[in-house]
Structure formats: C-alpha cells, structure tokens
C-alpha cells in the first residue's frame, strides 16, 4: 500500500535574478511501513522536497497524495494530521521558553499519562518533561521530537538530516529508535541524509537526487550493488574512498 506519493513535482526559486530549480519532475512513492532514503549532495533539492511534501512550500506544479487523497497546496496546519517532521536542529525544534510537557501537549489531546508512556517508548524518563530544551542533550531533544511526532498520531515521519548534529554514539541510538518505532507504531519514514552508508544500512528503498532531478530510485541492494546511474556510482565511490 502506498501512503504518500508525489507526481511531477516542480519547484523553482529566483534568487538574485538567477533561477534555481531544486525540484524538476520529481515522482516518489512511500510505501506503508517502509523507510525511504533520499540522498544527494548539498543543494540537490532534498530539503526542498520535504518542504513541498509537508506543505511548508507550495510546489509550482505537480500533485501530492496521502492514501490516494490529493492534498496538493494544503498548509502544514492540515498536513500535520498525517505527517510530522523531525528536524536537523533538535534544540531549535522546541520553543526555548516552553518546557517539554507544554511543547508535547501542543498538538495532542493526550493526557500526561499517555505522554509519559510515549516518552518512555522513545527512551526518556518523566522528569525531563519539566525541562526546557536547553537543559536537555541533543539526543534527548531529538527523542522528544520523535515523541511529539508519535503523539500527534501521524503515519508519516519526514526526517531531514536528523542525526548530523549529534555525536556518533547518539546518532546510532536515534537511528535504532527510528527503526524500532517504525516496527512498533507502523509509521512510514522518509529519511533525508547525505550519509550514504547510514541510508544503505537502514532504508528499504533509496532515491538519489542531483540538481533537483531524481537520477536513480530503487531497492537499497539494487542501488548499492548495481547502480544504473553514473552519478550514483560516483557517490558510492566517494564513500568507499573514505
């Protein structure tokens, strides 16, 4: 079953009289319960794609569907009912003036017991609920944002470089958590990362973007073992070289 899909998405920015086209005829499908990895070098349009999917930005053309229902042009206030974002900047994901309990309560009708249960599920203890973001570690903040996403009962998580601001051990823990909740809560995940090694390890399918174009898309093994595109091969070689 396909949870989320996009067809022929286009997005263009004009900055200082120069046209940038971070999305050009982009198609994607996100299957129920899968982790879809999106890789590509800086500026290839990965974040723009997530912004368009979540309704933060409107596509210039193209269609978006959630469970076969079109939602193109819906604002985040609407899309938030079925999708949530986890950001690279874990600290910045929470209002610095609010404690965690207030932040988590914002989008959910759940009571404190339910909140405590969910933050337990992401590996956090109840006493952290009284703290403000700057009194948490980066990893704890990132777990909190995953908890917030789960509390809103979204079935899709959009993750943009969610581990790149964390240290290596914490990175591994957050990724492990992501895989666990995928299994437990049956959510579907889009994971944007420049880290091809990470993506190839945990994603079911991979999409490779270059200059706003999807140059390759397929099952992880296929993309890694027999890349059909020259650019993907170059990306793969660059990690092997490292």
């Amino acid at each position, binding site marked *: 079953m396909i949870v989320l899909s996009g067809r022929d998405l286009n997005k263009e920015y004009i900055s200082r009289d120069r046209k940038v086209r971070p999305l050009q005829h982009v198609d994607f499908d996100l299957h129920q319960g899968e982790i879809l990895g999106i890789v590509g070098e800086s500026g290839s349009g990965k974040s723009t794609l997530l912004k368009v999917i*979540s309704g*933060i930005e409107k596509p210039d053309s193209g269609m978006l569907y959630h469970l076969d229902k079109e939602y193109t042009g819906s*604002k*985040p*206030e609407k*899309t*938030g*009912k079925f*999708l*949530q*974002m986890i*950001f690279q*900047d874990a600290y*910045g*994901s*929470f*209002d*610095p*003036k*609010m404690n965690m309990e207030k*932040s988590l309560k*914002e*989008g*959910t009708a759940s009571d404190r017991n339910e909140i405590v249960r969910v933050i337990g599920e992401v590996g956090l203890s109840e006493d952290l609920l009284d703290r403000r973001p700057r009194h948490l570690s980066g990893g704890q903040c990132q777990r909190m*944002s995953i908890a*917030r996403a789960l509390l*809103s009962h979204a079935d899709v998580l959009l993750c943009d470089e969610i581990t790149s601001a964390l240290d290596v051990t914490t990175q591994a823990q957050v990724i492990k958590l992501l895989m666990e909740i995928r299994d437990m809560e049956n959510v579907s995940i889009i994971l944007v990362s420049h880290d091809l090694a990470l993506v190839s390890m945990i994603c079911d399918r991979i999409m490779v973007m270059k200059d706003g174009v999807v140059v390759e898309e397929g099952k992880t093994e296929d993309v890694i073992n027999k890349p059909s595109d020259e650019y993907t091969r170059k990306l793969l070689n660059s990690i092997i070289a490292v």
Partner: protein
Amino acid sequence: MLAPNDPYATNSSLIRQAPSAAYLFGTDNLGRCVLSRVLVGARTTIASTFFLVAVSFLIGIIIGMLCGFYGGIVDDILMRVADLMLAFPQMVVAIAVAGILGGGLGGAMIALGITMWTSFARLARSHTLSIKNEPYITAARLQGKSGLQIMMTHIMPNILEPVLINALTQIGTTMIGISGLSFLGLGVVAPQAEWGSMISEARAYIQIAPWAVLFPAAATVITIVVFNYLGDAVMEYRKAE
C-alpha cells in the same frame, strides 16, 4: 499623600518664599509649595510616561509581529509609514500634532505616541523575522496551530525581552517629551502640577525665585538619568548573560 502641603493652595502672603523648614523647596509666584507640586507633578509625569510607553509598546509589538510574521503588502505599507515617521525628528512631529490637537495631556500623549510605536514595531518585526523560520515555529504549524496562536504562544514570549528592554530605555526620552510639550504649553496646562509646565511658568521670574525652576528641573533630570541608567544596566546585564 506624600505632599507636605496642598499643591494647589495659593497664598498671597507667601509669594516666592525662599526654601525654609516649612517649605523645603520654597514657594512659587502664587505662594504654592514647590515641593508639594514637584511630588504631585511626579505622579502626572511618571504615570503618563509609563502609560504612553506601555500603550505604544503594545501597539508596536502587535503591529511588528503581524508585519514580520505575515509579510506581504500590509507589511510594506506599515513599514513605509514607520519609515516616514522616523524620517522626522520625534519632537517636531509631536509639536505639530500637539499643536493641532490643541494641548492637554491627552493630546500630548497622542502626539508622542504617533511616532513612538514605530521603534517598537521595527524591533518586534526584526526579531519576529529572525525566529519565524525556526523549526519550532514549523513544528507548531504542523501541530495545527494557527498564525494567531503561534504569535501569541511562541513569538510573543520569545521577542518580549528585547522589546521590553527597548521600552525601558525610551522612558527617559518620553518623559522629556511630555515635560517638553508641557513646557511649550502644548501638554499639561495650569494649574495642574507637571514638571515641564512648572518650569515654564516659573522661568518668567527665575531671577527672583530660582528655586521654583531649579527643583522641578532637577527632578526631571534626575528621573531621566535614573531611567536611562536602568535601561542601560538591564541591556548590559542581558549582553553579559
């Protein structure tokens, strides 16, 4: 309440008395106790200053948040208006407006407020712009919060501090403004006690009874210095943090 004598009681036998034990600051041209008038005047000057700064602050922060958050044509128009206001010296605008409104404390406050909100609006707008793309704002939108809710619960609390500190630093200038307009006869009018109008009245006979000018003038200067110093201190403290 604090005043030792009735600030409005005239006494023809006590005209322009030098400071004494009974009248610490002396008396004025009508035999009124200068100390009592300075004390009662403090209430007028300080209370109207605070009220004016508070109202301008509220209007400014709301307009600034709306402009910063929504942008677009309303932002363009309001910010051009603000630019226009800032292009003229505040006191010049205030004198012109107060003149048109024909004096009185209310008129003076409107005259000063017309330009004062702009500085709060600009500051609130720039701080709103700097936080509106923070992930927590996007997160709140994804939690289903409307623009208005986001402004009240997330933006306001996060921009309040710098704008409030700016308000504190404006108290001194505002006080000069109110006293200045009153001095020019465009603000508080006789016989109500207000520092600016007291100075204005008494300067006619400054050579005979300098205390009638000196004490309200000193009170004005000291208060302004204190508030400016307070504003700077808070600002320094914030920077050091």
